[in-house]
């Protein structure tokens, strides 16, 4: 088994430990099932768009936090130092965590929207905004260990990062022409929300543009976090 696959297997074993993964997957399945039942029964139809977007926003940072806790645990227990002297380049380790996170979150997001059908869009239109939103998880995964010293700080920081993503939900409830509405664009999650709403309105070009903008925004934030994370790792190694 290649070192990278070994690390992937180790990560999955760590997440499976203590029943974390079964609990989370169980909850995810329950949420999708509940939303699908509400949709099938035709209940609260005027809220479907809002419910779907809230569900999407709700789980993204949480999944990122799960991967972030893995890294914080490694920092606490010294496993990160062992990884630094392993044959695996640090960039590969980071890329693996980012890849796993995106794969898990993006695929669940797609499964959710296709199973619940609260917003009916072609698959091709779902892909860009969901990819952008899934980067919220990646950002959380890297930013938490980059800025927190231990588990308590990781928890506190996550609350702030989580709110930074969830604040996009406000866009669904405020008047679109309010003077403060553009302030919500300071969170890239709002760009994905605007992308989905544009697709719903049939403004395909705007939908793709908002999603692309959100992607670029997230990538910029992630790049900053990666720099901070690496600087911190280099500081520990020195």
């Amino acid at each position, binding site marked *: 088994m290649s070192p990278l696959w070994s690390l992937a297997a180790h990560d999955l074993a760590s997440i499976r*430990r203590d029943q*974390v993964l079964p609990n989370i997957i169980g909850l995810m399945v329950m949420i999708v099932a509940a939303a699908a039942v509400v949709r099938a029964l035709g209940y609260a139809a005027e809220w479907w768009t809002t419910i779907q977007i809230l569900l999407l926003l709700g789980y993204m940072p949480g999944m990122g936090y799960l991967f972030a806790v*893995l890294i914080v645990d490694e920092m606490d227990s010294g496993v990160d130092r062992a990884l630094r002297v392993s044959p695996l380049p640090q960039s590969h380790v980071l890329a693996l965590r980012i890849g796993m996170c995106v794969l898990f979150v993006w695929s669940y997001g797609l499964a959710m929207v296709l199973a619940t059908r609260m917003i009916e869009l072609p698959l091709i239109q779902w892909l860009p905004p969901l990819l952008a939103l899934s980067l919220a998880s990646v950002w959380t995964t890297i930013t938490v260990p980059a800025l927190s010293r231990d588990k308590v700080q990781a928890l506190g920081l996550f609350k702030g990062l989580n709110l930074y993503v969830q604040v996009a939900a406000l866009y669904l409830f405020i008047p679109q022409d309010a003077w403060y509405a553009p302030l919500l664009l300071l969170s890239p999650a709002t760009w994905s929300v605007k992308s989905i709403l544009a697709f719903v309105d049939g403004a395909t070009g705007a939908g793709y543009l908002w999603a692309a903008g959100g992607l670029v925004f997230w990538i910029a934030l992630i790049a900053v976090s990666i720099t901070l994370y690496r600087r911190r790792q280099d500081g520990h190694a020195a």
Partner: protein
Amino acid sequence: MNAAPLLRLVLWDIRVQARERIYLFTAVTTAMFMTAVALLPGSAPATVVTAILLLDPAVVGAGFVAGLVLLERAQGTPPALAVTPATPADYVLAKLATFTALTIAGGLAILSVAYWPPSSPGLLARMTLALAFTGALSVVGGLVMVATAHSLNHLIARAFPVSIVVELPLLAHFGVIDGWLAWVLFGASPGHAMLRALLWAADPAAVTSVEVLYAFGYMALLTAILLRWALLLHTRTVGEGTS
């Protein structure tokens, strides 16, 4: 119980919480919630403000106290505590006092934005009472959840279903499910009692006196049971530390 070790532990906890930036993180998240509340239309009902309180500010102690206990365990605090005059009850009560105070402070800060200028002198007293109950219940809940948790991952695994149970009564709060069905489905959830208490604090006319009795009575009962449980579990932890 001796008051001096308890007071010293309270002061020590405050220092540790400041060092761990818990106050900074709470100030930041509270500021974000205050901004969200400030952006709400003036006609927003009390149900919205109280729902925002349940999302985090009214239960802020649960996660932080659990994280702090895990950290202290990793740093060997329980065995160190065992050779001091402080008892496990002091350890638990110090955390209960500090995090409940933090809950009240954060909640009132949000309230000050939602109801500025304060419409009645009773509002502050009612909301302080309600936040004291929600804060204490969430802290003892966090202490019980973390007592036998092996890791932060283990804690998260426990916290996920608990948070769902606590937040599901929002469906009744917003009238999606109402009547007897709401009580059957959510009556046993601490979240339902918390929401009733917070709603009473914000708008006494929106809640019947029976509901107020249920809300505070149920929270008091749960807090007493969980506090007793937390004391038993943490006494065992400190005991293990001395062996």
